[in-house]
């Protein structure tokens, strides 16, 4: 029985065109299983699959960066357009060191500075899993960056500034759970790719890890334990959010809904708990300074809130646990940057549906109904009435509206 199963797997991998692969791991069930799990933890499918496509990992998805649009490559085992002809070492060099097979440097849209923290064995297992994917011929034109950014040579400078090779180091003073969480957050999970502030060259502000950043039209809020927006969240709240996409405070939407759907919801309860335990231990900055919003704006915003928002979010802003976000505690509301709040008011948002929380409630758009001053007023009210986030100007709404009109996603 075991023999025939092994033969079948061998036939499959041969058909998949990875006969050249040297690692015994490629035919090892346990390695493939670990690799699948780690590929989920690393959310590979998100960037390397065109949303809605029936061909996972075949690349071609445009990735928006502050410098232009990159297009993700094909990582199926196709020998010519994918990674079928790569050796394990070449794969590991790409994932952990940002080096392509031809020796050229990868753009850090591929989060190799984080994946460097993964163990070589974990990366090899991911490779083992990817070798089982159906190969698809799909040549991808890699990037649409302007000169000089289209010169990969420039990346040498970037790597020097922002890339610190080297594996994850355990913190012996911390628990096993903490270290597991740290490994996942810093490594495969690459949480900092979105949540850590970036320099003007797109490198991590290493002094402010996980303290929030804004990208692709969404706020990735401060997820540290400090006095920031997650201060009221327990480790259980965080774990539940990662697993289900919903908790008593918030609902994942936008880019984070994709992360939950394709990655964190597929992790074990132990692992999301470990990530939460670690995040609760990352110290963060003090909350945003107290802000004083104009009393008249708050009155106007409050009236709009009672008319349009209170039916779902309740008059006191607390919403309905796991269904309607609690505006007094939602991280994307009580944060310095109003990008997400404005986006959700103007455009509406669909929250993620998961096996654990299948409802996937959505908020409708109000941009057609409210003018810029009204949006600014209601946004100021929800950020300021229960929290201390700074007021939102009419001008900020105008700019966000224009930016959203220009967006395709």
């Amino acid at each position, binding site marked *: 029985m075991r023999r025939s199963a092994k033969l079948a797997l061998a036939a499959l991998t041969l058909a998949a065109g990875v006969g050249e692969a040297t690692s015994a791991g490629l035919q090892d069930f346990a390695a493939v299983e670990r690799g699948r799990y780690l590929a989920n933890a690393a959310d590979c499918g998100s960037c390397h699959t065109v949303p809605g496509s029936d061909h996972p990992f075949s690349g071609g998805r445009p990735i928006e960066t502050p410098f232009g649009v990159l297009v993700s490559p094909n990582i199926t085992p196709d020998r010519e357009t994918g990674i079928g002809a790569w050796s394990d070492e070449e794969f590991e060099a790409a994932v952990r060191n940002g080096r392509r097979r031809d020796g050229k440097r990868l753009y850090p849209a591929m989060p190799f500075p984080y994946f460097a923290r993964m163990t070589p064995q974990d990366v090899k297992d991911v490779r083992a899993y990817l070798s089982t994917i159906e190969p698809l011929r799909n040549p991808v034109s890699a990037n649409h960056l302007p000169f000089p950014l289209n010169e990969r040579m420039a990346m040498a400078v970037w790597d020097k500034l922002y890339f610190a090779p080297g594996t994850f180091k355990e913190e012996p003073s911390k628990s096993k759970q903490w270290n597991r969480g740290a490994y996942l957050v810093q490594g495969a999970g690459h949480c900092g790719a979105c949540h850590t502030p970036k320099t003007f060259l797109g490198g991590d502000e290493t002094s402010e890890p996980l303290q929030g950043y804004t990208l692709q039209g969404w706020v990735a809020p401060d997820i540290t334990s400090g006095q920031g927006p997650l201060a009221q969240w327990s480790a259980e709240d965080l774990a539940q959010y990662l697993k289900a996409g919903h908790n008593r405070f918030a609902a994942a939407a936008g880019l984070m809904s994709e992360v939950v759907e394709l990655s964190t919801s597929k992790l074990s309860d132990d692992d999301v708990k470990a990530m939460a335990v670690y995040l609760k231990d990352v110290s963060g900055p003090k909350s945003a300074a107290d802000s004083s919003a104009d009393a008249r704006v708050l009155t106007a915003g409050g009236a709009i809130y009672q008319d349009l928002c209170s*039916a779902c979010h309740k008059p006191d802003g607390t919403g309905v*646990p796991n269904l309607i976000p609690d505006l007094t505690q939602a991280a994307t509301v009580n944060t310095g940057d109003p990008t997400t709040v404005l986006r959700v008011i103007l455009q509406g948002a669909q929250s993620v549906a998961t096996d654990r929380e*299948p409802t996937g*409630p*959505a908020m409708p758009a109000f941009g*057609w109904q409210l003018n810029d001053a009204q949006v600014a007023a209601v946004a100021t009210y929800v950020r300021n009435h229960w929290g201390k986030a700074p007021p939102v100007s009419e001008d900020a709404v105008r700019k966000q509206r224009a930016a959203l009109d220009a967006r395709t996603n």
Partner: protein
Amino acid sequence: MVRKLPRKDVVIIGLGWTGSIMAYELADAGLDVIAIERGPWRNTATDYPPGYAADELRYRIRHELFLSPSQTTFTFRNKMSQTALPIRSWGAFMPPNGVGGGGVHWNAETWRFLPSDFVLKTHLTERYGASFLPEDMTIQDWGVTYDELEPHYDRFEYLCGTSGQAGNIKGTIMEGGNPFEGPRSRPYPNPPQDQPFSHTLFGKAARDLGYKPFPQPSGNMSRPYQNPLGVRLGPCTYCGFCEWFGCGNYSKASPQTTILPVLVRKPNFSARDNSEVVRIDLDSSGKRAAGVTFVDAAGEEWEQPADLVVLSAYTIFNVQLLLLSGIGKAYDPAANTGVIGRNFTHQTTSDVVSFFDPAKFVFNPFIASGAIGMCIDEFNGDNFDHGPHGFVGGGYVGQVQTNGRPIETTPVPEGTPLWGAQWKKAVKENYQSALKPGTGVHGSMYSYRDVYVDLDPTYKDRFNRPLARITMDFHDNEIKQNKFLTDKFAEIFQAMGAKHVQKEYRKAPYDITKYQTTHLCGGAIMGSDPNTSALNRYLQSWDVPNLFVMGASAFPQNAGYNPTGTVAALAYWAADAIRSKYLKNPGQLINA
């Protein structure tokens, strides 16, 4: 050219309540299921957002959520001797359209029928003698009992998060609930909604008169709820925009808020919207369904082969599709033969509009939800002795005031001009102090030999198929029943202290232009005898055993309740029979 799609295990026609229940149950059993829905897909937040969902003109008056009569309609006549004419604007009922079907726009009044309702003919004959029933009345037993349906009623109530007060738990009568209801296995999943002032006052007056008032069971949430499928609903805000409207607050039970989020995650379920099934295809033997043929929005015709066909459209479309597909023998009222189209019924409702002293009564009638109200059940079914009254049937009566919406909820005393300054003055004086229940008297309509559906000889639809023709009128029994109930109802308003009570009895002839309810029933009824029913007790076609027909079209006659609870319980009952019996041995489940 008709294009043939890959075979599925199950094809479902119509994705409303019963289609969603069947799709979930059969997909859960591991079958590959496709649902085909004539109307569009509808989502809670984006298709009825709170920002504009509360628009009476758009949804109530202009019927946005309903089928457009330009897409298809019916012809109507009162008597067999008349020529039927097409309905060009919906009046007496509203055919639903789109994913969720009637479950989107209903009030969420979630009743169970009485145990005696399911054995009506036997029960009434035993109690009053056969001669007590009118000669042309064609009521029948259902072939299924209340006790058999109880677990399935229970499942639906827990799916929906029904808010209510149990009246009878396993035979123990519960204070504050409906003492006439059949025994239920456990309480409702949620407590009743809070009752507004006028509803509370009605309850008190009814109690003072010796009745046992109780809050109407409601699919509007009294608190946040997570149903057994893991889907969540939020608390109702009492906005008063349920009936005719979709709920954008996730507060009203609908397929969207209870089943579809889980169903659409199933890899063995798929759906096609904006696609109209034009016939159920039979194989060469004519005794098995081969699948269905449908037309998509581009006008392309497709054949969807399937091993099992579930017909779960709105009542009259079920009947029409059976007739057009040549399944079962069409009913002939003259010869009294055939079954398809037989025992078609609707409803006998009426109003009592009451005017109170504005100085003493401020009701705030706009604070309401779809199924909010206090009811009494003393005059429903056979809960009272019909002997002295000379009719059978009945209904619940209640101050079930679902809204105070400004276009239609403008009651003025009789004699007020219909427009102008006098009318405006009267509206202003009475708006806060007049009561106009939604369906105050919600009465049964029993079946008769000359009330039925067949195919119209003249009028055709866009596919050149004959329209369904309704022949319907009220009989003396229903008129008497309605007068009796309306008078009893009015007495309670008088006891509340109304200064003027205006009774609006239901009268013959049946008026197709005046709204009653969307509760059309019958036409493809269930029963024990293939000569008088289209379906067996499991809702399986007697003629085509791989066809099951859901919905109120299976009711042999209409009881005095809103039908959705029973419609859904029957769907769960049928799904259970398919899963536990049919799949093991696909054939006739009952040998008759």
